[in-house]
């Protein structure tokens, strides 16, 4: 795979580097978090990380059989990338399961960061707000920096904020759908009502313009996995997402215009050729 020189990035994207994201004690230049699952090969994941200059990677934990050694090679490769690791609690269906898995993750990955997922419905993989909040409260008390996966529900987000999580991660759409933001007004409300919280859109983004949309709203970062990993060229798609995230961030800071309901000519009307006043009836 081709390695991309960071200096190849457009000026606008490079300018975004001065707009760092501070979260859980880290200073991040990249606002694109990347999942590590579903890539055709580990080398392609590594190339995608390099191409998009990703700084945060999500990982997970699963049962280990004694005869299984292959996972160790993968783990060494991930470590060699030298990125921030954000372990998740994917697959947990209760607060207690999530808390235990978070503690296991802290020991293995050597980080107090945890992407908290407590699933409430197996069909939609919709998070359980009660279990998530309960686990978040326990984990924050135990010294974790909690990145809480949730829906776009405002009250849940407010309670997670009050619990002291490091970041709130509302979905754009159900995990793996690639549907893009299904409820932009709800996401806009979250941003407006939680102006001081770190908000990271997680799940459901399928294309770079989805990332731009939510970044334009003022979200602090996005997390994508399937949209990159299952692209025909994951390395190129990772780079496209990185540029889209930067574009949205820059646009947000540039204060987009307000939408209007009716047309308004942008070209001056004074001095329009061929114009003449029609006679009054």
């Amino acid at each position, binding site marked *: 795979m081709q390695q991309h020189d960071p200096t190849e990035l457009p000026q606008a994207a490079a300018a975004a580097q001065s707009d760092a994201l501070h979260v859980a004690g880290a200073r991040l230049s990249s606002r694109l978090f990347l*999942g*590590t*699952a*579903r*890539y055709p090969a580990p080398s392609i994941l590594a190339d995608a990380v390099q191409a998009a200059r990703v700084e945060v990677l*999500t*990982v*997970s*934990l*699963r*049962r*280990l*059989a*004694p*005869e*299984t*050694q292959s*996972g*160790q090679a*993968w*783990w060494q490769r*991930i470590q060699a990338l030298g990125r921030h690791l954000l*372990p*998740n609690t*994917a697959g947990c269906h209760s607060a*207690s*399961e999530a808390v*235990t*898995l978070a*503690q*296991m*993750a802290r*020991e*293995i*990955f050597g980080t107090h960061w945890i992407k908290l997922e407590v699933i409430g419905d197996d069909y939609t993989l919709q998070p359980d707000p009660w279990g998530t909040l309960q686990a978040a409260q326990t984990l924050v008390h135990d010294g974790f920096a909690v990145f809480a996966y949730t829906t776009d529900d405002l009250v849940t987000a407010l309670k997670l904020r009050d619990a002291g999580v490091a970041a709130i991660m509302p979905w754009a759409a159900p*995990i*793996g759908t690639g549907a893009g933001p299904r409820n932009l007004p709800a996401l806009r409300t979250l941003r407006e009502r939680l102006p001081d919280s770190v908000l990271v859109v997680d799940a459901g983004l399928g294309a770079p313009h989805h990332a731009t949309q939510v970044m334009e709203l003022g979200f602090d970062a996005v*997390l994508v*996995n*399937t949209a990159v990993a299952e692209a025909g060229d994951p390395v190129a798609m990772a780079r496209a997402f990185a540029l889209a995230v930067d574009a949205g961030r820059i646009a947000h800071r540039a204060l987009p215009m307000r939408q209007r309901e009716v047309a308004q000519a942008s070209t001056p009307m004074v001095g329009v050729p061929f114009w003449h006043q029609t006679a009054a009836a």
Partner: protein
Amino acid sequence: MNTVSMPMRLLRLNGQPVQTACATLAELLRAQGYDVSHAMACAVNRQFVPRADWAQRALQPGDEIEVVSPVVGG
């Protein structure tokens, strides 16, 4: 040589039944063929057991042990 037979315990290891005479978690992991130098973490009865406690963590009949390691994730 100690000829006293150790009591056998029926446990669950990653969801599978295991009959063992191992008295501690560390002994069980070695007996089951785990290379404990690898990245792995354990829980017993859904309670996290830090690596430093594996040698002291006594096993009881019916214990449910989980052993996990890093994998890809979104």
